[in-house]
């Protein structure tokens, strides 16, 4: 075979090979990212940031990681214990179902409010919404990222 023609084909295939090398490097980087996200211990589903809490428990400004089911109330057995005289022992429950958060009032004396509107049945809750129990206001936020990307 003509050596020049051979060179031409080598260069042509080199171009295609470099395209695939590029894709391969990206694929490796992406898989690495996904693995790192999956390895993250105790992957949380959301966070509650305490916006207002006159009673001081939980403290204003703290942010609490949430599991799929998070109960709120004055009783110590709740996932989030709220020290406030207007809050019932078992006040409300936040659940993560499928891909969204929902809030439900557990028959509390003073009710639960989402952005000021009373919760009468199971209600979807978006990130950024503010839940109010008693005088305590809690804002639902997205889970913290697994790890800051470089």
């Amino acid at each position, binding site marked *: 075979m003509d050596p*020049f*023609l051979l*060179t*031409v*084909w080598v*260069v*042509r*295939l*080199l*171009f*295609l090979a*470099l*395209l*695939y*090398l*590029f*894709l391969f*490097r*990206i694929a490796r*980087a*992406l898989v690495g*990212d996904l693995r790192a996200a999956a390895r993250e211990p105790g992957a949380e589903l959301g966070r509650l940031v305490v916006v*207002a809490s*006159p009673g001081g428990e939980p403290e204003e400004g703290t942010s609490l990681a949430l599991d799929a089911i998070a109960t709120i109330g*004055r*009783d110590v057995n709740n996932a989030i214990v709220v020290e406030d*005289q*207007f*809050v*019932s*022992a078992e006040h409300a429950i936040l659940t993560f179902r*499928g*891909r*969204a958060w929902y809030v439900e009032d557990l028959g*509390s*004396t*003073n009710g639960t*409010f989402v*952005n*000021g*509107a*009373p919760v009468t049945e199971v*209600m*979807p*809750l*978006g*990130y*950024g*919404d*503010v839940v*109010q129990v*008693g*005088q305590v*206001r809690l*804002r639902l936020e*997205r889970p913290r*990222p697994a790890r*800051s*990307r*470089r």
Partner: protein
Amino acid sequence: MTAAAPGLPAILGPIRPRPRWRETRLLVIVAGAVVAGSVSLALTSQVADPGESHGLSLANPVHVAVYLGLLAIAHTVLILSGRRMDEVLLPTAGMLGGISLLLMERLPQTQVVQSVGPWRLGLGDVQLAWLILSFGLATGLAVTVRSDSWLRLYKYTWAAAGVALLLATFIFGDDINGQRLSLTIGPISGQPAELLKVILVVFLAGYLSENRSLLVEESTRLGPIALPPLPFLAPMAAMWAIALGIVVMQRDLGAALLFFTVFLFLLYIATGRVGYVVVGVLLFLVGAYLMYRIVPTVQTRVDIWVDPFKDASGSGYQIVQSLFAFGRGGLVGTGLGAGLPTVDGNLPIPAVHTDFPLAALGEELGLVGVTAILGLFLVLIERGLRIAASAADEFRSLLAAGLALVIGTQAFIIAAGNLKLIPLTGITLPFISYGGSSLLVNGIIIGFLLALSDRGVEPPPPPKPRGRIARLTGRVSRLETPAAGRARIAPGPARRPDAER
């Protein structure tokens, strides 16, 4: 070097460069591939029989060098900005742009000739100029955009501007091939539909993130499908009407299909309701049938798609030639520059640089090359959705997903059209097709995605309270003193201390 560089204007603040090694490594591969491609092009022109005119033009080494320099500058600027941004987007877009430059250098330069002052610019020159502007825009937006409130707060203003652009094109646009798409204002002419894509995504992201909880509620039932309250179906009806309007008024099937598809994607991402998608697809089918009966252009396109060989030298000519090109390419293609750019001095596919770049690349790079190019688009979509998944709030999430899906959907529509998988609609292949408006808008999209991928930006604003009660408690709790507030805070029935314990 973490200290402020002396002599820089104060507004820039201290410069804290942050290395981006992954991006550097990927860009090295991009540079290698582009250089290999241009060498391959140069060697091919040596092989070509000198007696036969292939209409082949050599890759200008200066253009390749300028393009690689451009990527290096963009990379350096991103490093100097010190933001933690995605490191895969720029190299991927750079690779697509490089392939585009090689293709435009290789096609007959007389396809597009523009005179600027004393210079006559051919296809390759003009495309390089647009690529420079596009990457410049992307880098500029990536470095400067730190807050999204100017998009978030003025969504209706943006929507109004978009509709105004569309109407202006209806009225003042220039007719090209029976389509009224481009608008000329003074010396500048462009295709507003391209910019409309970004405006649409901004508006939808704002609208859907604000009304998400209302859209999720179900109160209407249509047989087995649960639907949200009827008033909230109105945006879907409006979107459908706008898409049909674009088809009727502008004969622009591609844009209409793109807008409606992206709308359905975003609606599904925001609500997670299959019912919306079902209704949307039904609406699409009804609309498509109506258009097929009413608009002759649609009818021709569908007829060509059903059997392009019926009129292979007439209406079906381009698509038949495109299929032949893919067939000639085979597995690894004929090699860059070794395809059939001209037959008897004419291009077999007249619109090869705008609507059929994938056919040309399919011939010269083969199945292997086309698969790699589609893979690059897949990477762009994956990055966009990943940025969306880790965004700080609903608006940013929808914005990132929408922008990435605009690029992905567009690539799918034109690639499938070239391959006769769906009826052909004239739309550009992002970053590869020739065209200023398209390249600039793609640059804007990449710039926004880069800016959105930085988690260190301004936090999103607090949500607006809904309804009267919320406004009341909001005001009271701001003013309250601990003693007075306790009595007045109760939004509903009078509160009493809970006595269960």
